């Protein structure tokens, strides 16, 4: 209980003074069926705030002994209105929220002063979903979404998704409210001495804005830091007291000035070009590439200039390279790279080690050298490459390509062309065989994953489609069976290998594609969907067209296999490996779940012959501007 005002002078708080004139906005607080009186005091939910000018680095507000005087019309305005002006200037289109009293000031300003436009509020049923939506949105839209969360509880809920955005190097801007001087049993746990500490290990920047001027500058700085490679999430703490204070004069809102993105050192780029042009079997590996659609074109230019295969690597990669391009692949059987170029690859330790042991070379161009966290070990091992260039890979590619062209003599050009023809032929054989492999289990029930995807591809062939979910558990069948010929066909994976990203991130990605009229589809696991199922209500409520295909294998199958292996290592039977890993008994009906959230749905489908019809009906809804869901009982992998 707050006791900073001891009117009795005897070291104890006078109860009558303490409670007199408390501003109970809800016409009195009822506890245990009784209204508060002097004899039955209850804890105050909030203190009345002083009128403040913008340059008040405000002291602890005094306990009000009487209600604040009514404000004359035209005298100042809520500080949170100014904050909305700042956020509008930055240009946020959307703000994903799950409401909380610590940002009631900002919330009210968004919907009334800001007219719920730019940013438009997106109602989320869990803060993890809100941040994951922002994560998926940022990759598809090329710019961040704002997220606003409640103090401590909201930020903690969102922490998993913040970690994933961090690991994926994706910008998300989060504002978290709290009470600088909390009172009451509810407010105190929602406040913290150092709010940013809760998530500091996995955000690029965090700050608490203590004045409006600092809010304006910090918001601009936060956006700039989030969007400067290596990109990442940022958090800005704003006290409720500041939001709700009244502004009589306002600070200037600074301009948002973005820095020029660092490019590779000219001499180093020349050396990289020399090594690559001279190489007999170069390999390009890409991870967090690229920030913009321009990177797609640049990667194609680079690979074609060198006639070098492009290995899009695994789950942590953004995989922005056309999947049916002749250079898509690792070179084919027997291709041993003598120079490997890593572009935004966080950890090149393994290829570097192998290369050194065999007299080969590695080059790394990545912004990771410019900034890295330390607590979370997503940075991997130390990469002992031969040439390390601290720069944004996308920004460096134009100079690198130009150098490669300058240094490619006519003799090298024909040798490079001959290599390219061999690589293209090898890749084509691998890709065609991979497509043929889809025939196995074609008519199986439960339905095979390639069948799910092939049938989907057939139905969306005439659409400008975009897959907004990852491929962690679908064995890359999307990239084998569908021609990923545009940068937005695929939106990457979760970053931190945590389940629960795909479903909400898909909603964010779909939102980004809505303006362009694209057809977003998401293939999400049942395990993933259960982490934030409420986000499908968000999709329905905000009319975000998106087809969810639930890859429903009724288990966390990777973990079933892991426990089987562990039991085998320990010489125990496998009979119990499923305990704690399967999602059965009862089976969850995701079609019914979707209907409960107000979405069109079909399923569960166990017969692959029923897929085409279900897809047609569901896609009709999506094309008309609504989300839809199909539950497919699938093979484990």
């Amino acid at each position, binding site marked *: 209980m707050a006791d900073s005002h001891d009117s009795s002078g005897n070291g104890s708080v006078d109860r009558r003074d303490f409670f007199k004139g408390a501003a109970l906005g809800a016409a009195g607080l009822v506890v245990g069926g009784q209204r508060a009186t002097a004899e039955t005091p209850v804890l105050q939910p909030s203190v009345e705030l002083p009128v403040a000018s913008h340059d008040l680095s405000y002291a602890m507000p005094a306990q009000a002994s009487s209600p604040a005087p009514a404000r004359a019309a035209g005298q100042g305005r809520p500080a949170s209105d100014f904050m909305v002006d700042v956020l509008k200037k930055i240009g946020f289109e959307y703000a994903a929220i799950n409401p909380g009293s610590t940002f009631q000031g900002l919330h009210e300003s968004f919907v009334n002063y800001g007219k719920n436009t730019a940013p438009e509020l997106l109602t989320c049923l869990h803060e993890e979903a809100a941040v994951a939506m922002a994560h998926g949105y940022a990759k598809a839209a090329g710019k961040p979404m704002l997220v606003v969360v409640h103090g401590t509880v909201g930020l903690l809920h969102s922490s998993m998704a913040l970690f994933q955005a961090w690991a994926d190097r994706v910008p998300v801007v989060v504002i978290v409210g709290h009470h600088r001087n909390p009172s009451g049993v509810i407010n105190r746990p929602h406040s913290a001495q150092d709010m940013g500490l809760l998530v500091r290990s996995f955000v690029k920047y965090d700050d608490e804005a203590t004045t409006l001027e600092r809010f304006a500058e910090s918001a601009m700085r936060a956006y700039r830091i989030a969007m400067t490679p290596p990109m990442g999430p940022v958090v800005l703490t704003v006290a409720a007291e500041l939001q709700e204070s009244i502004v009589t004069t306002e600070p200037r809102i600074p301009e948002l000035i973005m820095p020029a993105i660092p490019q590779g050192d000219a001499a180093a780029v020349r050396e990289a070009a020399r090594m690559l042009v001279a190489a007999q079997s170069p390999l390009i590996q890409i991870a967090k590439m690229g920030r913009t659609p321009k990177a797609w074109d640049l990667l194609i230019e680079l690979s074609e200039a060198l006639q070098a295969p492009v290995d899009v690597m695994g789950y942590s990669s953004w995989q922005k390279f056309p999947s*049916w*391009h*002749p250079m898509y692949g690792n070179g084919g059987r027997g291709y041993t790279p003598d120079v490997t170029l890593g572009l935004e690859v966080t950890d090149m330790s393994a290829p570097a080690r192998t290369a050194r042991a065999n007299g080969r070379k590695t080059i790394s161009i990545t912004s990771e050298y410019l900034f890295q966290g330390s607590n979370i070990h997503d940075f991997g091992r130390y990469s002992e490459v031969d040439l390390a260039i601290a720069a944004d890979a996308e920004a460096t590619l134009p100079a690198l390509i130009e150098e490669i062209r300058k240094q490619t003599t006519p003799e090298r050009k024909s040798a490079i062309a001959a290599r390219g023809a061999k690589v*293209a032929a090898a890749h*084509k054989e691998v*890709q*065609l*065989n*991979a*497509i*043929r*492999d*889809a*025939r*196995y*289990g*074609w008519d*199986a029930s*439960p339905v*095979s*994953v*390639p069948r799910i995807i*092939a*049938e989907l*591809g*057939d139905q969306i062939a005439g659409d400008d489609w975009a897959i907004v979910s990852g491929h962690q558990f679908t*064995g890359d069948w999307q990239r084998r*069976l569908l*021609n990923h010929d545009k940068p937005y066909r695929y939106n990457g994976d979760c970053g931190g290998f945590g389940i629960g990203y795909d479903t909400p991130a898909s909603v964010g990605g779909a939102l980004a594609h809505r303006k362009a009229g694209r057809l977003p589809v998401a293939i999400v696991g049942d395990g993933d969907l259960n982490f934030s199922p409420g986000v499908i209500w968000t999709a329905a409520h905000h009319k975000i067209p998106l087809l969810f295909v639930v890859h429903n294998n009724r*288990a966390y*199958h990777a973990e*079933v*296999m892991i426990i*089987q*292996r562990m*039991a*085998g*290592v320990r*010489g*125990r*039977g*496998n*009979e119990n*490996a*499923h305990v704690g890993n399967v999602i059965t008994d009862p089976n969850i009906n995701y079609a019914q779940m979707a209907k409960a959230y107000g979405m069109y749905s079909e399923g569960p489908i166990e017969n692959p012959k029923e897929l085409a019809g279900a897809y047609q009906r569901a896609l009709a809804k999506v094309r008309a501007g609504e989300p839809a869901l199909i539950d497919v009982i699938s*093979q*484990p*992998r």
Partner: protein
Amino acid sequence: MTHRLALATLLLFVTTGTAGAQSQPEPAPLAAPTGNAQRGKVLYETTLRCYACHGFDGQTGSPRLVPMARAEDIFLAYVRKPATPGMPTFAATPEAELRDVYAYIRSIPQAAPPAENLPLLKGILDRRTKAN
């Protein structure tokens, strides 16, 4: 069984399991399984949960179990002490149960239709071929 025959069978298994090409060789004729395929299906799907990696029908998942090229004794020796990382060991599983599982795997259709005979896949193959 001699080591040479075992090695040949093992190599054949590895080859057929990884090639994925239309022109994979026919597996060598194997002796009839001794176990009970019906019991084996229950073990495969419920008790030992082989489906978790290999699919409910042995055709999906990784790696595929069909066509099964290992003779029964080779199969038993392998699953008791697998050389492949990631494959759990079934050293504690009774021999009779493993023979039942083998019988079930052998009862699964061992071949898949050519992709060219499946209109959807043929369409994808044609598009990929024409792409470049």
